[in-house]
């Protein structure tokens, strides 16, 4: 047991626990209303939103998994960089419109918007279910981040004792999310991101010095890992895989319910617009974190006997924790592990709140309790946020990790199928509501089929076009199918005179301040 690291870790954890509960009083509002509990009253300015979205999108799992991919597979892992570069121009074009219409019409979820825009409870239900389905495994994966760092400090018992620290961490998280709502992760995000920035800046200065500089690090990486493999004849190989993974993931990121929650909690349209130019600071950070995977290779932690059992248990995910233990004094390793674990709590809290908002607004209220009061609505959301977390915890404890990873891969393929209704819907109502339902169904089915063909091990599908192989992100291919079906059936349904429903939004809503 690494007592020094553990002490620092527990101290940090205690601080954020207190903050989580105190958050209920911050920018005080009536927490018995869903928009207060679940969107913090839409009151966050530029700085808080920067921390909140940064803490929300760049999750602990990312901080573990991206360098792990660089460590294991090399250059392909850096697709996270172009992915989080091109996401912001897209967000600037699209999501201020969502903020405006949601603010004007009191929408709390993306499905609320779809319901109002297309006058279609069915379509809204599908959007809500897709969101919940894609979020659940994502929460589970946040726990993996915590598990790895707790293990790294010497807690690697088996059975339920081994899971105890994780259960305690999650119980605390569940309690303050329940009482404080979105205010808790927002305030904790400020602490978490500060810790992460300190850790990473220290790491990218100190570790390369120990290893002989960046030039030496890159020179020591095997040539096969350093660049993408040149595609063989008749295939676009790793090039199209890298490009489509980046582009497809960028389209996906802000469709996730936790991203929408982050966007809608901003106090103005301007806050979102301004943040699209400020959030790339996190992208730069992520790129540096990715390079930690290479530093782990060069440091030789893989072959050090003291880390062997951990690599056996956690695989490449242990690369960064091992590098920290190897390169830093124990207290700073504890600091870094605290940053990673707290980094898991922020997105896990926001994800569970987002899923709770969706369930309450788009399933419970329309289908279970149509006449519920505002207070009942908020209580239901709080309860669901607990259920969602218990579910994620059970998932991680009782099922092999690979299922959570596979489901999270599928989650991206699924959530992108909500793009036609959500994103195109913000600009045009040309697509027919029932054509959107059909497009969604075909997109979900074809995307799942492609991933199944890959035995759920990856999402890069080798598409054959007239003798040419174009390996690409299955989510993107399925989205194209979805769009074609939606467009074709719009024409068909219009010709048949199928009712289009009434638009409950107005053109000016989308530009309103």
């Amino acid at each position, binding site marked *: 047991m690494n007592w020094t690291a553990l002490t620092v870790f527990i101290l940090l954890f205690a601080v954020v626990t207190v903050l989580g509960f105190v958050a209920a009083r911050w920018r005080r509002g009536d927490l018995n209303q869903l928009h207060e509990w679940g969107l913090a009253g839409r009151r966050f300015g530029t700085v808080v939103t920067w921390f909140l979205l940064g803490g929300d999108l760049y999750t602990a799992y990312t901080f573990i998994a991206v360098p792990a991919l660089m460590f294991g597979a090399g250059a392909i892992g850096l697709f996270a960089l*172009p992915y989080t570069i091109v996401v912001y121009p897209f967000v600037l074009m699209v999501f201020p419109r969502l903020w405006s219409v949601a603010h004007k019409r009191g929408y709390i979820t993306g499905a609320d918007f779809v319901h109002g825009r297309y006058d279609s409870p069915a379509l809204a239900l599908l959007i809500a279910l897709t969101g919940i389905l894609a979020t659940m495994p994502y929460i589970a994966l946040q726990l993996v981040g915590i598990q790895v760092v707790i293990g790294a400090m010497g807690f690697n018992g088996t059975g339920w004792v081994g899971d105890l620290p994780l259960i305690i961490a999650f119980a605390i998280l569940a309690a303050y999310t329940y009482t404080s709502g979105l205010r808790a992760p927002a305030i904790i995000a400020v602490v978490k991101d500060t810790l992460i920035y300190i850790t990473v800046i220290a790491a990218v200065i100190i570790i390369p010095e120990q290893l002989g500089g*960046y030039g030496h690090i890159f020179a020591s990486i095997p040539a096969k890992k350093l660049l993408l493999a040149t595609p063989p004849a008749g295939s676009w190989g790793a090039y199209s895989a890298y490009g489509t993974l980046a582009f497809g993931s960028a389209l996906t990121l802000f469709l996730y319910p936790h991203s929408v929650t982050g966007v809608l909690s901003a106090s103005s349209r301007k806050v979102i617009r301004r943040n699209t130019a400020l959030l790339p600071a996190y992208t730069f950070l992520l*790129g540096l974190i990715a390079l930690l995977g290479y530093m782990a290779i060069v440091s030789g932690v893989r072959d050090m006997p003291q880390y062997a059992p951990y690599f056996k248990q956690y695989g490449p995910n242990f690369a960064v924790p091992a590098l920290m233990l190897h390169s830093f004094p124990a207290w700073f390793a504890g600091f870094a592990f605290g940053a990673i674990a707290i980094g898991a709590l922020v997105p896990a809290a926001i994800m569970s709140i987002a899923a709770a908002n969706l369930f309450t607004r788009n399933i419970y209220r329309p289908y279970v309790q149509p006449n519920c009061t505002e207070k009942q609505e908020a209580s239901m959301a709080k309860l669901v946020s607990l259920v969602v977390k218990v579910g994620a915890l059970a998932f991680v404890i009782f099922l092999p990790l690979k299922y959570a990873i596979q489901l999270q891969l599928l989650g991206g393929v699924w959530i992108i199928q909500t793009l036609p209704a959500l994103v195109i819907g913000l600009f045009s109502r040309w697509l027919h509501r029932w054509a959107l339902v059909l497009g969604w169904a075909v997109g979900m089915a074809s995307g799942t089929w492609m991933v199944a063909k890959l035995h759920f091990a990856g999402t890069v599908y080798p598409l054959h076009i007239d003798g040419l192989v174009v390996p690409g992100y299955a989510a993107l291919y399925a989205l194209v199918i979805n769009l074609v079906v939606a467009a074709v059936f719009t024409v068909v349904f219009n010709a048949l005179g199928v009712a289009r429903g009434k638009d409950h939004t107005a053109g000016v809503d989308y530009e309103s301040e």
Partner: protein
Amino acid sequence: MTSASTRRGSKLWYLLLIIPYIGVLWVPFYNSLQPEFNGIPFFYWYQFLWVIISAVLTWIVYRATE
């Protein structure tokens, strides 16, 4: 252009946002070791550079369309 429409900003500014997509999604252009920068292969410093270029372009568009 009248002063009112200058202040509101033209939608054409949004076209600038296409540039980062061209910069980083055309992979064969940058999948190489040379030219190096302080020992860092082109593949890496090129993409890091685009983080900054893209953020600056996004800021320009945000200001111009305010």
